[in-house]
Structures are given as C-alpha cells and as structure tokens.
C-alpha cells in the first residue's frame, strides 16, 4: 500500500490532529486549566483553517483519489472544506462564553470533541465518491449532533429536541439507505462513477423511486419541505451555539454533498428524473419556510424557518446544474454562514446576558444596545438580500446561475423565488422594526457582551460588508467551479 496517498487527505488529517489535541487536553490537563479549553480549540481550528487555506493558495491541493476512488479531493472540495472551517471557527468563538459557564464544567471537552467529529463526518460526505463512505460521513455528522442538541441538560426543551432530532436522523438515514439499496439493485455498484455510467439512459420506475428516496433522505438533513418538521423544535430546544452550528455548517456541507451526489451519480438523468422533483421541492421549501416564519415570535424558531427558506434558495444552485450555479451555491453558503452567524451571535449574546429569546423582548433594543442591534440589522438585511450587503450578491448570483440557458419553466421558478424574497423581507423587517421603531417600557437593559462574543460578531459583520463588494472571493470560486471535476458532469 502506498501510504503517500494519505497526504491527499491533509485537511482530514489536520482536523483529526485538532481533535486528538483537544481530547488530550481535556483528559490530562488539571481541572483549573480546563477553562482554557475553548480558546485552545479556537486557536487549533484557526491553525487548521489557515493551513488548508495556505495549501490551496500554494497550489498543492490538486485532484487525487484515495482508497481506490472511494475518497476524492480536488481544489473545489478543498474550498468548501475551508468555507466550513471558517464557519466553525466563528461558531467556536461565539460559543466560548457559553462553554465557559459553570454548568458546562464537566462536559466542556465533550462538546468540542463531538463538534469536531461531526465536522469530520461532513468532510467525508463532501469527499465521498462511494456510497459507503458517504453513509459513514452522514452518520458521523448526524448522531453526535443529537448529543450536542441535548447539551442543556437542565432544560426540558433540549431533551425533547434531541429525541426529535435523533429519531428523524435515524429515520432519514433509513430512507436514504432504502434508496441506496434500489440503486445497488439497479446498477450493481456503489461507486459514483459506475452508477453514473449504469443509469445513463436507463430510466425506470425503480430509478425514479431510488432518486426520490435519496433526495428525501438528504432532504431531511437539509430540512427541505416536506421533510422539515423537526427543524423548528430542534432549533428552539438546542443551545444557541449548537443551533447556529446546525443551521449553517451542517446545512452548508450537506447542500454541497447533495449537489455532488445529484451531479455525479444521477447527472445523466437530470431532466428525465429529478429536475421536476427539485422544482417542486424548491417551491415548497421557499414558500412554506417563508410563510411559517412570519408568525414566529421566538427568535430561534424564527431563524429556523428562515433557514428552511434559505435552504430552498441554496437548492437553486442544484437545479441550475451548471458551473455558475455551483459557484453561486458555494458563495451563497459562505455568505449565509456569515449572515446567519451574525444573527445567532446577537441572539446568543442577549440570551447569555438576560435569557430572553422572544422577538418582543427586542423592542427598543436600538436605544439600549445600539451596537448589538446594528449587527442584527445588518444580518437581517443580508439574509433578505439588500445591497450593498453580501446577501444581495449571493442571491443575485444564484438567480443568474439558475437562469443561464434556462427554459421558461425555470424562469417561472426563479420568479416564484423572487416573489418569496418579498415575503422574507417582510419578516426580516419585523425584527428591524422591533429593534428600531417599536417602543417598550422595559427593553433589554444595556449590557456589555463578552469579548469573545464581540469578536465573533465583528467577524460576521466584516463578512457581511465585504464579501459581496470585494470581487476576488466570487471570482476564485467560479474559477474553481468551472475547472472542477463536477463541472464535467454538467452535460445538459
């Protein structure tokens, strides 16, 4: 065996090193220095991110296969992993205050270990070119998350959320593997490229069933409507740091893996089998997510439904089925990470300081905490797609990607998505209205948020302000996407 092939997995190896170091720190460091663990993790993760980023810049990340083609990496895959890493760093920074709390003293290490394991699972999902590896990644990314959701062990909702999450996760895995067994029965292989060759022109009812099960299985993780019912309860019940991790990192990784599966496995039957499925799913996801978000008063539930509809927009990159769409999707994920983490940063800060998470508690916030409300407003505008914030650019690019060479049907789809942006603007403005316009007798008192929380928010604000206006990020992504192996599958 040629051990040098392991070098291709350098991002995974870096992550494993981080994991091991955190584990060792947690196990062997004395009790009094345990408080340093969060910062220790952040620094290590930052190093891993920087290393991955530099190796890309130096051009050492090239296409290579490991384990006989089961694992695959290329610049575009490395790029999405770097995007996820950046998100994780922000989540970790924002969670320092929460993880430093007294209640967490015995379990602080576990939180970080579980988080890193799920991230490792997502890496595997993104890099898998064989369904066995994919399933290992998927499970690795879901099951530890259930434990993380249950982390607030003194809160009843946290338990309920964990049970809901684990049941849906297991159920969706079962559905997914049902689809896989159909695929295996049809083609006799679990390698992506072999299935691609075998299903080429082989439309059958079984194939439609197989694709539908696969979409449903992954759709649960992405919380696409109608597989979204767990989302609001879990987001509300989970600790805020976990919710933010769940809503951006988990969603971003799964969306990319989903695109890879749809293109590299079922790409040859795009227009025959799954274009219409995605078409219906996107319309449902965006519309239902938006309509339910309007009525939410709890900020975490509110962002849960908002993130459902955002997932619908991300899926436009899948149905676009071209390099522009792929690049736009990655850009969208990146921007979404920053915008959503900006919002969760504020929610977490207010929750940590006062325990309030209702939108009504945010009334008059701009008078008492102008900086927090400013961050929140930027995040809301970015999520709604208002220029000059990054969200506008990501939305514009994903629509442009979807419309490249599109049929009238896709134009209609984009029009529906665009009309939905107005609905979404309405509820995002409700938050802005609560903070800036509504008056309240007893608004949230002025408080000083923890240094770590402020750093997290400033990073998010920087991303919201500059990711769109500064073009190299998008230009790089589109160059990576156009030259990627995935682009060769976009045959149309």
């Amino acid at each position: 065996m040629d051990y040098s092939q392991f070098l291709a997995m350098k991002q995974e190896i870096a992550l494993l090193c981080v994991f091991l170091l955190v584990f060792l720190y947690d196990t062997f460091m004395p009790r009094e220095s345990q408080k340093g663990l969060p910062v220790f993790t952040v620094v290590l993760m930052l190093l891993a991110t920087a290393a991955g980023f530099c190796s890309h810049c130096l051009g050492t990340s090239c296409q290579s296969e490991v384990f006989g083609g089961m694992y695959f990496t290329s610049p575009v895959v490395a790029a999405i992993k770097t995007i996820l890493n950046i998100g994780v760093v922000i989540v970790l920074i924002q969670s320092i205050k929460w993880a430093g709390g007294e209640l967490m003293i015995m379990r602080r290490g576990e939180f970080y270990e579980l988080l890193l394991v799920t991230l490792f699972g997502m890496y595997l999902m993104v890099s898998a070119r064989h369904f066995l590896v994919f399933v290992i990644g998927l499970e690795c990314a879901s099951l530890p998350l259930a434990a993380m959701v249950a982390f607030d062990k003194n809160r009843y909702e946290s338990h309920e959320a964990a049970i809901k999450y684990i049941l849906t996760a297991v159920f969706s895995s079962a559905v997914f593997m049902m689809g896989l067994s159909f695929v295996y029965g049809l083609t006799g292989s679990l390698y992506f490229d072999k299935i691609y060759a075998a299903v080429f022109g082989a439309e059958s009812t079984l194939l439609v069933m197989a694709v539908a099960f696969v979409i449903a299985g992954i759709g649960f993780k992405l919380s696409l409507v109608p597989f979204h019912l767990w989302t609001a309860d879990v987001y509300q019940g989970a600790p805020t740091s976990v919710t933010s991790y769940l809503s951006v990192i988990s969603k971003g990784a799964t969306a990319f893996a989903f695109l890879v599966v749809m293109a590299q496995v079922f790409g040859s039957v795009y227009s025959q089998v799954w274009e219409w499925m995605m078409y219906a799913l996107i319309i449902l996801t965006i519309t239902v997510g938006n309509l339910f978000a309007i009525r939410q008063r709890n900020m975490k539930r509110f962002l849960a439904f908002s993130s459902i509809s955002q997932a619908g927009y991300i899926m436009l990159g899948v149905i676009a089925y071209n390099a522009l769409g792929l690049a736009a999707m990655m850009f969208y994920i990146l921007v979404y990470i920053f915008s959503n983490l900006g919002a969760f940063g504020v929610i977490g800060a207010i929750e940590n300081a006062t325990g309030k998470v209702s939108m009504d508690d945010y009334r008059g916030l701009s008078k008492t905490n102008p900086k927090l409300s400013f961050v929140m407003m930027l995040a809301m505008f970015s999520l709604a797609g208002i220029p000059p914030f990054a969200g506008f650019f990501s939305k514009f690019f994903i629509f442009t990607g979807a419309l490249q060479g599109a049929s009238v049907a896709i134009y209609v789809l984009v029009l529906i998505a665009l009309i939905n942006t107005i609905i979404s603007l309405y509820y995002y403005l409700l938050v802005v209205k609560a903070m800036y316009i509504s008056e309240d007798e007893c608004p949230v008192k002025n408080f000083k948020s923890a240094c770590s929380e402020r750093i997290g928010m400033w990073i998010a604000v920087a991303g919201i302000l500059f990711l769109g206006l500064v073009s190299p990020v998008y230009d790089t992504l589109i160059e990576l996407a156009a030259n990627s192996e995935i682009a060769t599958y976009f045959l149309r």
Partner: protein
Amino acid sequence: MFENILIYFVVIPLVMLGLLALCRDIKQIRAVAVVGSLGLIALSVVTLVQYLGMRAAGVEDPMLFVDSWTWFAPLNIHLAVGVDGISIAMLLLSSIIVFAGSFASWTIKEPKAFFLWLILLSVGVFGFFISIDMFTMFMFYEVALIPMYLLIGVWGSGNKNYSAMKLTLMLMGGSAFLMMGLIGIYYHSAPEGGQLTWNLLEIVKNASIPHGWQSFLFPMTFVGFGVLGAMFPFHTWSPDGHASAPTAVSMLHAGVLMKLGGYGCFRVAIYTMPQAAHELSWIFLILTGISVVYGAFCACVKTDLKYINAYSSVSHCGLVLFAILMLNETAMTGAIMQMLSHGLMTALFFALIGMIYGRTHTREITQMGGMMQIMPYLSVCYVIAGMASLGLPGLSGFVAEMTIFVGSFQAGMTDYLAGHGSLRLVFTIIACCSIVITAVYILRVVGKLLFGPVHDEHHRTLTDATWWERLSTVTLIICVAAIGCFPNFFNNLINFTFKPAIFSVLGMN
C-alpha cells in the same frame, strides 16, 4: 478610477457618510450636510459645463465621460459610468433636492442617524443616475430603497409602521420583477456566441434580444420600474408613504426617487427592447392614463395636505410614464422636462407642507385658514408652487406639460392617420383633462388654506419662515422659474445624443 469626474457623485456622499459617523453635535452634522450637498451641486454644475463644452466642440458620442472598471469578471459585471444630457439633468435635480432637503430637516430629532440614512439614500440615487451597467444600476436602485423603511418608520408621523412596511414591500416587489427582467436581458444581450454584457450602450448596439423574449422581459422591466414611478395599480404605496414620511424624506422621495422609476423605464425598458415597447405600449398607456386622471381626482377629495400632494404626484409621475410611452422625441423630451419640473415643485410643496405642519401641528385643510395673514412668506411660496403645478406659463410645469401634450398629439395623429387605431389620441385627450382637475385641487387648497378667515385663533401667534427655511424654498423656486424661463436650454441639453433604438424601429414601420 478617480480621474473620471462621475465617480465623485458616489464618492462625495460616501465621504459624507464617514464624516457624519464621526460627528459629535448638531452643528457638525449640519456643516457636513450643507458642505457636502453644496459640493454635489458644484460637481453637477461642473459636469454640466464640461459636458456642454465637449458637445460644443463637436463630440458626437452617445454618452460622455464613459468609463468602465471590471468588478465581477466571470459575469462581465463592470462598474460602468457615463452620462448624456438626460442623466446630467437628473443629477442636477438630485443635488439641488438633497441640498434643499438638508435645510428642510434643520431641526430634526436624532439628526445623526437621520442624516446617515438620508445620505445613504442619496448614494443610491446618484449611483443609479451615473451607471450604465445594469447590475450596478440595479444595486444602487435597491440601496436607495431600503433607507426609506427606517426613515419613515423612525422619523415619520401618523400611521408610520403600516406605511413604511407597505412602501418597502411594494417597491421591493417591483424590484423582484426587475431583477428577473434584467437577468433575462443579460442572457440575451449578445448574438449567439457573443460576449454577454450588462452594459446598456452595448446592449442597445447589439440589439439582439429576440422578439419573443422582448414581449416577456419588457413587461417585467417596465412594471419593475413602474412601481416606483407610481403606475396604476401599483401606486398605492405612494400616498401612504409620502403622508407618513418626514419632510426631507418626502421631498427626496417624490422629488428624486420616483424619477428613478421613470428614468429606469425609459433607459432600460424602452432603450433595450424597442419592438416590445412598440407592441405592448398600449397596455401601459392605458394604465398610466388611468394614473394621470385618477390621481388628480383623488387629490380633489383628500383633506390632508400631504395626501393631496402625494396623489398629485401620482398624477404627474403618471404623466411622465405616459409621455415616455408615446415613443416620439417630443413627448419624451417633455417627459424628461416633467421629471425635472415635478421633482422641483413637489419637493417645494412637501417642504412647505412640512414647515406649515411644524407650526400648526395639523395637515387637515379644514382646520386651517387665512395663512396668508399669518405667514405671508410661506403662503406666497405655496401659491408659486401651486401655479407651477397647474401649469402657469413662466414656471416649469407649463413647459413640461405643453411639450408632452404636443408630442402626444403628434403620436396620436400619426397612429390615427396610419390606421393604427385611435387609442393614443383618445388617451391624450383624457390626459389633457387632468390639467383642469389639477387646477381644481390646487385652487381649492390655496383658497381654503391661504385665504379666507383665520380658522383657529391660536394660529395667529405663529411665526413666519426662518432663514434656513427661506434658503431651502428660495433655491427650489429659483430652479422652478429657471426651467420655465429658459426651456430652450434644457431642451438642447436633453436632445437625445444617445438615440433610443425605438426611433429607428418606428422609422422602419
């Protein structure tokens, strides 16, 4: 990048934003606002002089000061700027109104945040008028829309929450259609295999949008911009929004932002899709014809001063779109004149209404009267604004409306004689009636509000205009009179160096 004069139209407001953020007291904020907006006026005058100089020297390019800097290379998105006479007229208008608006909000509460949003809005406005790249144009368009929400929501009066939300959502709804239309235009902007582009000059030159796509994309684009131009039935945001907005915001919104709609319809929809404009103009002609007359009638029955003026704006802005859809040079020249004229006089109106409201704390004309005895200066200004609005010769309204109706009759008669039906003719006649209705509601307000007995004895203690209010109004009145007295200057400025393709399309027919 910075050797191009146009870029400073965006740079100056951005610098103002930075300075405002540093300001500590009201004096500094006022200083920044006044110096900055004076700088903008100076800049637009310099641009005008240079432009005229180059034209006099015989430069025949469709647009001048054209420059383009790559932004997102893979999608061929550029920051492209360029102006012709029409955009220069709009830049002049905007800078004057920003200047007058700063003085009109001299004593606003929480001035720092207010001016930050107001100047952000003007970044959008100026950016929109200098852009010739559809992407940046659209981006600046939306930048100009969103500050409205907070400006109305925080500093507004009356039913402000409802109005602010309605206005924002309806305008964003328009821009949803618009985004669709613009991306559609982009994907058909070059012949098969050519380099796709967002640049308006190149799109017009390529003229490659297939006929079928034009009939799909033209309504999208026209409605998208038309919402901001208060086209019936998408005008309902305008009365509520204007009534709730603080003075300077009403001025800027009715004076400049609504022009974005008209300008956009004209620059994007009509320029890039001439065939569809020719075929589908009848639908929008009917809609805008309705807004002209309906707006005027509504103004007749309202008793709130701001509502009256807002409906009058619907009527006058309807006239802009109406004239554009006549698709001939005279009417289009009139449309641009009307944009200038309406922008100035409606800003004057809203400024005066704000000043009166600030003193009497009511805008109901039934509760006021005899203002001529109490505050003669403001009342005389109001009469002048009213006369401009109802088209008294010597003021701007007359010039604009005259040109529009002459052009419309021309278009109508041409259609009729060529056997294309009499729709244009009929609607021209209907729209002409709006002049009479305008006279009715203007004179009604003037009679009730300014003359007659003093309604409320408390009003006798009120004072007349302060110096900053005088400055604000005098600036606007001078401009209104200037257009009325020297129409030929503006006529020559507008003279279509960047020819809409529609003229040649109609020539062929």
